[in-house]
């Protein structure tokens, strides 16, 4: 499947199965079962599972359109996370169970026996959570956890606490960087969501008339929309960098670039979108809020821009590379210098 065919078919699937009404219903506690079934039937959940294990055997680079499309419709179920969890399990020789699965990193110092994850993305619509703690991952059923809602309007996140895990819980040695995987997955979803926010804003700027002309004719509005276009283009490129891997998982440095740049874009993109929309953008009825509320949450998921800036800065300082450009060419784009070029 070429990039575009894949992107078009996943876009069509998600636009059809997850219009804004479905997002609203699930946010308000409606069942995600039907939506999930449609997505599960599509087979895309096994995009990153190797072919000999029954999957599509795509690389993360090839699967990026699926991740971004989830963000474009602010999908209220953890389809993007499920892809990565299934990719990880298959790579570890474990057959993934059916059902929506998210992933999280256990809080430090969660207690002797309990496993505590204080912010789990899409916790309320997941059957499973792959929890990394220390050198191991466990696949835990959400139903067995005590769920603590953050009490945030429309949020699908929650804190989850499990008692001592049953002896037969799936336990796998971990060598993956789940912060980086989360960074990559949410950078892609944020880029997708910001692209949609941009489309909404551009359309509104053309449609809304004040002082006898569309507001998009005012230079002040034009310049704000142009700045937004820049941040969205940068975010989309950042997501591409983050997912530029031939395996199922990202390079941590690339994921860091991706998440920090997309998180950095969120305040500006959401602020301009709301400014251009005026009061209508503040209403529950208009779709903009579905995106901007989620973008503010996702900006923090698996680390905000400052967390990743610090990690990147540390890597630069420790690298002892004589020049920043050298670091960028030889380390950030190291993979595209080797594996990409051999295939072209």
């Amino acid at each position, binding site marked *: 499947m070429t990039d575009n065919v894949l992107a078009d078919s996943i876009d069509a699937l998600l636009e059809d199965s997850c219009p804004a009404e479905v997002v609203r219903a699930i946010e308000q506690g409606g069942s995600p079962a039907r939506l999930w079934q449609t997505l599960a039937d599509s087979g895309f959940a096994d995009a990153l599972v190797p072919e000999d294990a029954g999957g599509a055997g795509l690389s993360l680079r090839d699967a990026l359109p699926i991740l971004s499309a989830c963000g474009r419709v602010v999908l209220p179920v953890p389809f993007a996370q499920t892809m990565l969890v299934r990719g990880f399990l298959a790579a570890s020789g474990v057959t993934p169970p059916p059902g929506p699965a998210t992933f999280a990193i256990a809080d430090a110092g969660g207690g002797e026996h309990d496993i505590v994850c204080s912010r789990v993305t899409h916790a309320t619509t997941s059957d499973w959570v792959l929890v990394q703690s220390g050198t191991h991952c466990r696949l835990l059923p959400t139903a067995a956890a005590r769920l603590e809602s953050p009490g945030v309007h429309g949020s699908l996140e929650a804190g989850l606490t499990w008692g001592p895990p049953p002896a037969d819980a799936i336990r796998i040695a971990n060598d993956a960087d789940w912060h980086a995987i989360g960074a990559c997955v949410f950078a892609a979803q944020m880029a997708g969501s910001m*692209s949609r926010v*941009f*489309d909404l804003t*551009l359309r509104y*700027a*053309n449609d809304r008339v004040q002082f006898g002309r569309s507001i*998009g*004719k005012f*230079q002040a*509005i*034009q*310049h704000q*929309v*142009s*700045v937004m*276009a*820049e941040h*969205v*283009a*940068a975010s*989309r*490129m*950042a997501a*591409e*960098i983050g997912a*530029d891997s031939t395996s199922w998982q990202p390079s941590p440095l690339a994921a*860091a*670039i991706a998440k*920090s*740049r997309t998180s*950095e874009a969120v305040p500006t993109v959401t602020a301009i979108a709301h400014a251009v929309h005026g009061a209508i953008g503040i209403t529950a009825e208009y779709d903009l809020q579905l995106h901007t509320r989620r973008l503010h949450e996702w900006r923090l998921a698996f680390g905000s*821009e*400052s967390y*990743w*800036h*610090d*990690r*990147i*800065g*540390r*890597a*630069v*300082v420790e690298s*002892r590379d*004589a*020049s*920043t*450009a*050298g*670091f*960028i*060419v030889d380390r*950030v*784009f190291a993979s*595209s*210098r080797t594996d*990409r*070029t*051999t295939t*072209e």
Partner: protein
Amino acid sequence: MIDALPLAAVPPEDEALRTEVRQFLSEALAGVPAEIRAHSWMGFDAEFSRALGRRGWLGITLPKEYGGGGRSPFARFVLVEEFLAWGAPVSAHWIADRQSAPLILRYGTESQKHFHIPPICRGESFFCIGMSEPGSGSDLASVKTRATRTSDGWRLSGQKIWTTNAYRSQYMIALVRTSGTAEDRHRGLTQFIVDLSLPGITIRPIEDLAGGRHFCEVFFDDVALPDDALVGQEGEGWSQVTAELAFERSGPERLYSSVVLLDTWIAELRARGADDRDSRALVGRLVANLSVLRALSLSITAKLSRGESPVVEAALVKDMGTEIEQLTPTLIADAIGRTPDAPVSASLVRALAFVTQMAPSFSLRGGTREILRGMIARGLGLR
């Protein structure tokens, strides 16, 4: 929406140039202090340009029959990226290599190509851009300098300003009016290759705020131009200039102008043990932004190499790139001042002062921020 900009990679045969270039630059620039290297693409050294010419690194994308390297735009990307990373003094040949030679190749006659391009590739012929005038900055179509037909050529009268390197270049490519008036806007404009040694031309450098001399006033007092000074089509100057500006706006110099300052500061952070989290996070912020900008710039290079003309995308990258270039000295200054009693090297202080003083120019030359945002808005269909 703006077209997708797919992540591109430099092909291996072009990437292979990098090792050789790095080797050359590490020797050629050994011992050059940071504040000199921080001049980046504003540093002028004719002998250095000739040395690059001898290695075949000028006009690398131009056809071999005119003395060029016959390579892809990616080869030029690698060269330019390394020149900027090291702070090599590239100003002398910069404009000729980036835009004048490609323009002559595209619009010039066979004899103009044979006459002008080989010396550009040798680093012996430097060019400047004669667009701006005292009354015509952003509103470029209002230029008043005029060329009138004579029996054997043209007579040129008027004035250009802000012409970078005019006093140390051999030629200017000037945008002038050949028919109609300023009210005719885009119609009636023509480009000429003006030999700056001709009688009737007066060039005066204008000192800049940092004490440097690069841009100039250029006066044309009834200058006799031969017929073959005209490049391209009479009356087609506007569309030629628009195509030229796409080359001017998308290159790596639109993100790396402040990078020598950044490297100088990082070196001092390392020496101090880089124990301060705020400074480290600032390094990360700048590197993250530069990485994304580099990928965008490379993606535009890929489009140019396929013969596309990504004018709006180039405007977008230049606007974002210059913002980061301007943010770099501002934020580094604050980081240094956070510990007022810690020592800072004189070299870093001087590099920081130079970049801080010149930074406003990054978002003026090649089209101001407001003009670029207007172009993006037009590309989005808002105008």
